[in-house]
């Protein structure tokens, strides 16, 4: 009812380029949240949310910034993105900050972004990789693993995560026999696996992406009998990995951002109904990013970034009613009534410090060809 407004959210992801295979689901996740809010009819007195997609190319700063500008020009009220940490930094510095636009990235996880000057305009629904390193070291230690070989995808995410794992693991007395990069999208990993195998280690930790180089490395390592147990950080957790690799993966373990919420499952269900893969990397985070925007706008009663920006931390964190995926309508109602929500979303959102996900993690083990949650940290 009332004066129906339009809320526009930019979805600025790498629809072409090296992570093009992830972004379809990410975009769908974000748009699902928008559709949900619109359908509830409760957002800002019945405003409808439209999504404006634009491409970053993941690695093309020029394109990403140009498209960021385009989004601003089209009058978006917030930007979901960017995806890869590199372009995210560029958009932040060249588009978001100058224009006072709020950005929530679902997937840029580089520790470098934590300290970047952002005028409180930048948030992310994924934790910094620094934290994941600590968690992984903890898990490794508990499992009595004394030495690991480590390979990472050669970008700021992989490198940062590998650094974090190495430092944390060595701090607790573990040995890292080799740290070798692998390039995504190259296909042939014999050289990497050969070196990793030669270096030895109890398990192989693969800080990569599950349907990129990471999968290739695991496949190749299993095939050649180099390793049969793998450590799997967040980028490697997803249903497609055990499905693709098969029973050989049983016994491998890892962790992914997420708290003790049933959000992820709910989200996966919802996604299935929508016809995309809800377990695809960063799709849940994308949903959460979009939802955070809408909740903050509702809380501020405004679509002006300057006004709703400060509310993001509020709606994301306690106190308040916990909100799972699919419950946006309820949340909007509470907020409209002046109440308080604690958005959990698909990933158990908890924003800390400079506005990034706190980093509760789910420990995962692959059993009978499926990821099972062992416990939460």
């Amino acid at each position: 009812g009332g004066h129906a407004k339009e809320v526009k959210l930019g979805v600025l992801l790498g629809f072409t380029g090296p992570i093009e295979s992830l972004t379809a689901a990410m975009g769908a996740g974000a748009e699902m949240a928008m559709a949900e809010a619109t359908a509830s009819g409760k957002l800002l007195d019945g405003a409808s949310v439209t999504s404006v997609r634009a491409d970053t190319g993941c690695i093309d700063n020029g394109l990403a910034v140009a498209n960021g500008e385009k989004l601003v020009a089209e009058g978006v009220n917030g930007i979901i993105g960017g995806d890869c940490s590199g372009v995210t930094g560029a958009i932040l510095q060249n588009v978001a900050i100058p224009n006072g636009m709020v950005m929530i990235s679902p997937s840029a996880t580089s520790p470098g972004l934590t300290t970047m000057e952002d005028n409180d305009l930048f948030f992310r629904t994924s934790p910094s990789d620094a934290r994941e390193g600590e968690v992984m070291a903890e898990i490794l230690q508990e499992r009595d693993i004394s030495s690991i070989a480590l390979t990472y995808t050669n970008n700021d995410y992989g490198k940062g995560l590998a650094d974090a794992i190495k430092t944390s693991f060595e701090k607790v007395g573990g040995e890292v026999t080799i740290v070798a990069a692998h390039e995504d999208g190259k296909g042939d990993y014999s050289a990497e696996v050969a070196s990793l195998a030669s270096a030895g280690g109890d398990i192989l930790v693969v800080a990569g992406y599950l349907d990129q180089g990471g999968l290739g490395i695991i496949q190749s390592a299993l095939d050649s009998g180099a390793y049969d147990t793998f450590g799997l950080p967040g980028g490697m957790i997803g249903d497609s990995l055990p499905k693709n690799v098969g029973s050989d993966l049983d016994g491998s373990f890892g962790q992914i951002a997420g708290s003790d919420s049933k959000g992820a499952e709910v989200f996966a269900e919802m996604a299935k109904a929508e016809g995309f893969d809800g377990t695809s990397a960063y799709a849940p985070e994308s949903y959460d990013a979009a939802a955070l925007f809408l909740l903050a706008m509702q809380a501020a009663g405004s679509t002006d970034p300057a006004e709703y920006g400060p509310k993001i931390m509020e709606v994301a964190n306690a106190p308040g009613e916990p909100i799972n995926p699919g419950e946006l309508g309820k949340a909007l109602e509470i907020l409209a009534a002046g109440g308080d929500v604690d958005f959990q979303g698909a990933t158990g959102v908890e924003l800390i410090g400079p506005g990034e996900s706190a980093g509760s993690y789910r420990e995962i083990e692959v059993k009978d060809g499926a990821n099972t949650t062992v416990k939460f940290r």
Partner: protein
Amino acid sequence: MSDTVKHTLLFVFVGVLILLEGSTTFLNVFSGSWNSALVILNMGLISAIMALGVNLQWGFAGLFNVGIMGFTALGGLAVVLVSTAPTPGAFTAGGMGILMALVMGALTVVGAVAVYRFMAPGIARTLTLLAVLIVGFFVYRALFDPSVEAVEAINPALEGNIGGLGLPVLLAWPAGGLLAAGAAWLIGKTALGLRSDYLAIATLGIAEIIIAVLKNEDWLSRGVKNVVGLPRPVPYEVDLQNDPAFVERAASWGMDAVEGSTIFVKLGYSVLFAVVLLVLLWMAQMALKSPWGRMMRAIRDNEVAAEAMGKDVTRRHLQIFVLGSAICGIAGAMMTTLDSQLTPGTYNPLRFTFLIWVMVIVGGSGNNFGAVLGGMLIWFFWIKVEPMGIELIKLVTAGMADGSWLKDHLMESASHMRLFTMGLILLLVLRFSPRGLIPEK
């Protein structure tokens, strides 16, 4: 219509496109934002400079450089090395060691070359050569590895590299040119000196090697961890927004402070880039119209005869290759400055080498103005083909049922139109206007 008029009109056309981008939202293709128009203009200017550099090599000397990406990246590296603040303690921790190791490495290569030159061919030479290389390599690694480790250990989340000189960022532009020139000299010296010309594959390979070094040598520029927040030659928008005098001035233009500041900053870049472009263009034109240009044309027409007429073809090729690459380096430095960050992972041959080639060919190889036009025009399309494609597909799919598989698939694929269209433009130009839009006279 005389050629001059036609060519002026082409430039006017690009200008109009950019003006339209700034002022209208016609057909959803243009964004109607001056900010967006300026972003396109700025990258267009940089692209034009790159195209100018490549045109120098290709148009004037027929040198086929497919390593533009590498020189651009080196320009970016120069920005980090020149303009970032020095990392405290890095130099003492390992910087010295690294330098020594690099000198050692260079000495090894020089030594090996000397052995190859001055010893008579035979087993003895081969063995000595191998010995020099192997010993040199291990000494190099012994010096290099610990130093690198020491440097990378300094605050790795934020630094971990040797840092820069803390000089004004504008100095990084010529420095980028110099760095690229240095690399080009090395490549040219090896590749152009070969009996057959192997420049293409050498540049293609070395560009990949340069990117590999940038990605993996964290001590140099943090590798894939990127260097962010590079200094700028223009004021920060936020500072302007907080400056009452500026806010007032913006108001007098009828803009709010945010819009005013963003446009002001971008215009600042545009002016800087335009100045660089004009200076380079002037220099290229002057050179072209002089006896130097005549000599280059002669070399291009017939190398053997030019050589017999006393022209040192290899040296001239080297000269023009180094110059062209230097220009790409300058453009690369400018681009990194515009981005305010160096992200080695973003360098990709499709975008940084082949796209530049499309610009040069479409613009008109051998003609400096053509290269500039090509740079601006193709960049505009590179950005705008996507919205155009989406509109087109909307049109095509208008009749299809919503949610039909085909429609969804087409809409999703719309962004891949960009590559397709670039190819199409290139083919059409090669077919119907093989000398480009502004041909060599």
